[in-house]
């Protein structure tokens, strides 16, 4: 069982968390001018990085979405912070 740090609750067991998305995506606007290609890229493209990843996670028990920086090979957690504290 891996322990993940929720910025609101502190360290909690991994099954309380859900991976939501890779961080850094910006919704293309305005909708009327967004092409199908741009929209598909926003919806579906992932980097699936091997190594350090910045990800948005959801802590189901407190309802917090937050930014977690992890190593996807070793599983080490590098950083965990509220989205409001994230740079992008």
């Amino acid at each position, binding site marked *: *069982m*891996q322990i993940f740090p929720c910025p609101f609750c502190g360290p909690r067991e*991994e*099954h309380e968390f*859900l*991976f939501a998305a890779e961080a850094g995506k910006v919704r293309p606007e305005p909708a009327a001018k967004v092409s*199908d*290609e741009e929209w*598909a*890229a926003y*919806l*579906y*493209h*992932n*980097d*699936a*990085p*091997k*190594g350090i*990843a910045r*990800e948005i996670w959801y802590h189901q028990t407190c309802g917090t979405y937050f930014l977690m920086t992890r190593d*996807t*090979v*070793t*599983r080490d957690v590098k950083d965990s912070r509220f989205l409001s504290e994230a740079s992008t």
Partner: protein
Amino acid sequence: MTTRYSSLALLREGFRGHRGWRPAWAKATPQPAYDAVIIGGGGHGLATAYYLAKNHGIRRVAVLEKGWIGGGNTGRNTTAVRSNYFYPESVALYDLALRLYEGLSRELNFNVMLSQRGMLIAAHTPAQMEICARIANAMMLNGVDGELMGPKEAIARLPLLNQTADARYLCLGGIWQGRAGIARHDAVAWGYARAASALGVDIIENCAVTDLRIENGSVKGVATSLGEIRTERLAVAAAGATPGLVAGAGVHLPIHTYALQAFVSEPVKPCLDTVLLYLGTGTYVSQSDKGELVFGGGLDRVPTHGQKGNLPAQEKVVAGLLEMFPAFAQLKLLRQWAGVVDVVPDSSPVIGPAPGVEGLYLNCGWGTGGFKAIPAGGWLLAHLLATGQHHEISRPFDLDRFIKGRLIDEAAGAGISH
């Protein structure tokens, strides 16, 4: 040249003390250039090389494998083969694979130990039985051998299944596919490697691709740990490693990578002669020819590139197995392992040209279901490499489906677990 395997060859070698067997495939060193290069020496990559040489006469082909052949997901799955999917596009794809599997031992002159012992997707609520009826009907409409099985026949096929009064999941029946079964996973990789090697394909192990060489939007070769290799036709069949390989070429994929675990118990006498997937627990199990119970379940829910599993998923899978078969609690686990699977939002593979790069072709996104599709994945990718055009069966699985919105959502259709 490799020996043709036959009972006569076995008898002859028996008399000669087995001194005449040759290596099944040649260990090659890279040539400066090839007509086609395939990255990934798993089942899909090796099958692609074989069908390129066999179906299309293209024999100056290299398969580049960073480790050893069949050492990735081909050697890490639970060996089930089946075509019990929902959508016509999927059934066309997976049943092509199953039909090729049915003739594969003879085709390759290598025993892949295909055992069509049938597969039951078992239901335990009336609602699940309705879904099963829907999928079984779809399978029949798509021309494959699916049928809805009642509880009596289903339970008769599963003698150790917990059907006591206090069992949590009483079996109501389910979907039966008689042509489904298991095959020896290593033999599939080795058989394709041997047959491809005999046709002149170079299989190069311990050769990691570090970069794709692309000029003016066209493939010109690859940089590898063993030097530069020139080619104008490049295929990537590298499962979870695909996004990292093609990102430098500006190709983006709808892939998340997760660990999928599998488990093997100590060997016991025959006690289960079908492949079983239980909808109530999400655990699936079969018994290998050696007597081991081979089982698995859903994905680990933490994106990863590490080939190891985590404990919550292990607990869920083992609990599911024991819920179905309490007697198995006495068994020891022999091995547990994980593979990195490339999961796509609609749980269907990506087969087709990489957008924006001439000469680059993709075969990925199989998620948890790649082993059963190896012959079809190879057949279709070889067709793409040889002709530059889609085969009609691979056309729906092009990356453009994500732009057009024509997803083939087998997660919703066949209820597969990712």
